[in-house]
């Protein structure tokens, strides 16, 4: 028993100073921000990563460290946030922000840039070669296109892809030939950037698929809610500053509608009644085939 505790002590003491400082820095980041997330930085060249880090400045802070240190810092931060450790694998970093997780996700998604895909990589999504004039002169490239599954032929002196062609399903491996073809066409099927794997905020762990929000849907909801409130206000005849004018208009329209419908002899709608009668006479006349039966002004 004493041997064990001695071993523990030794291990703590064995941690070098720089590691301890790094863990402390990480702990501070975790402490400081409302939302803390794990982002994948795999495949991002370090110069680009530096640029991204600068771009985040102010809104979010990105820290990269050895995974063991990340795990230690998260574990020490306490229950709940320690659950983030399950996402610490591969090349990852910790990101902290005072934005809420949905906002962070949106910001990171918006900052992603397209990139070419290499042979041997797994397609992150379906890869499609769009219908187009490739501008490539007739030659063996037609065959290459056809071999990767694109509808291609020579038209008007150049190679055309004649319809949008799916050449790889999501999750399949990119072949050398496909990588070449895509490179030749300048198609960049990947999105490169900080990839949010999970975020912890206010005691809740958010997965990326629940963080993807459709702003258009929210806008539509706002419109629908506003329309429903308008409807209720008007249909219940409860005037508000936004609907009082419409209610008055509706009431007056109702009165006119009743007046016209019942042919009420009111000066306010007399002209409307005359118009209505005239329109009716014309409508009826339109059903009369025999010109003999019609006055000249209504004939053919």
């Amino acid at each position, binding site marked *: 028993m004493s041997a064990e505790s001695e071993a523990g002590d030794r291990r703590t003491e064995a941690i070098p100073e720089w590691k301890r400082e790094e863990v402390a820095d990480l702990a501070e980041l975790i402490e400081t921000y409302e939302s803390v997330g794990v982002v994948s930085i795999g495949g991002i060249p370090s110069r680009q990563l530096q640029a991204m880090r600068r771009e985040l400045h102010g809104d979010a802070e990105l820290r990269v460290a050895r995974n063991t240190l990340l795990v230690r810092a998260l574990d020490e931060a306490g229950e709940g946030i320690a659950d983030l450790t399950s996402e610490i694998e591969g090349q990852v970093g910790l990101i902290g922000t005072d934005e809420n997780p949905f906002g962070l996700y949106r910001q990171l998604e918006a900052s992603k840039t397209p990139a070419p895909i290499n042979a041997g990589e797994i397609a992150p999504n379906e890869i499609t070669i769009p219908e187009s004039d490739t501008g490539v002169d007739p030659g063996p490239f037609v065959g290459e296109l056809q071999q990767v599954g694109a509808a291609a032929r020579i038209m008007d002196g150049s190679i055309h892809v004649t319809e949008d062609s799916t050449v790889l399903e999501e999750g399949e491996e990119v072949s050398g030939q496909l990588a070449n073809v895509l490179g030749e066409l300048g198609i960049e099927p990947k999105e490169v950037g900080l990839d949010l794997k999970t975020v912890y905020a206010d005691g809740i762990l958010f997965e990326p698929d629940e963080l993807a929000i459709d702003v258009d849907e929210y806008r539509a909801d706002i419109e629908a809610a506003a329309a429903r409130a308008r409807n209720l206000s008007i249909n219940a005849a409860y005037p508000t500053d936004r609907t009082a004018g419409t209610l008055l208009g509706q009431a007056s329209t109702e009165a*006119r509608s009743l007046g*016209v419908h019942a042919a009420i002899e009111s000066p*306010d*709608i007399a*002209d*409307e009644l*005359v*118009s*209505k*009668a*005239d*329109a*009716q*006479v*014309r*409508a*009826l*006349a*339109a*059903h*009369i*085939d*025999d010109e*003999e*039966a*019609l*006055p000249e*002004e*209504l004939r053919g």
Partner: protein
Amino acid sequence: MEYVYAALILNETDEEINEDNLTDVLDAAGADVEDSRVKALVAALEDVDIEEAVDQAAAVPAGGAGGAG
């Protein structure tokens, strides 16, 4: 036009749209009644659903609409 209006009046008062009735209405309005047109109109309306035809005209921009204010 007065002939067609006469037909519409008779339609509203549920009187038969025949030559006599049309002629009476037009006479009362001081019109010079042409028998042949009255005949032609009666014949022409025989197969027309007047209610339906008239309903189609229900919505016309009111004459004075804009000016009412």
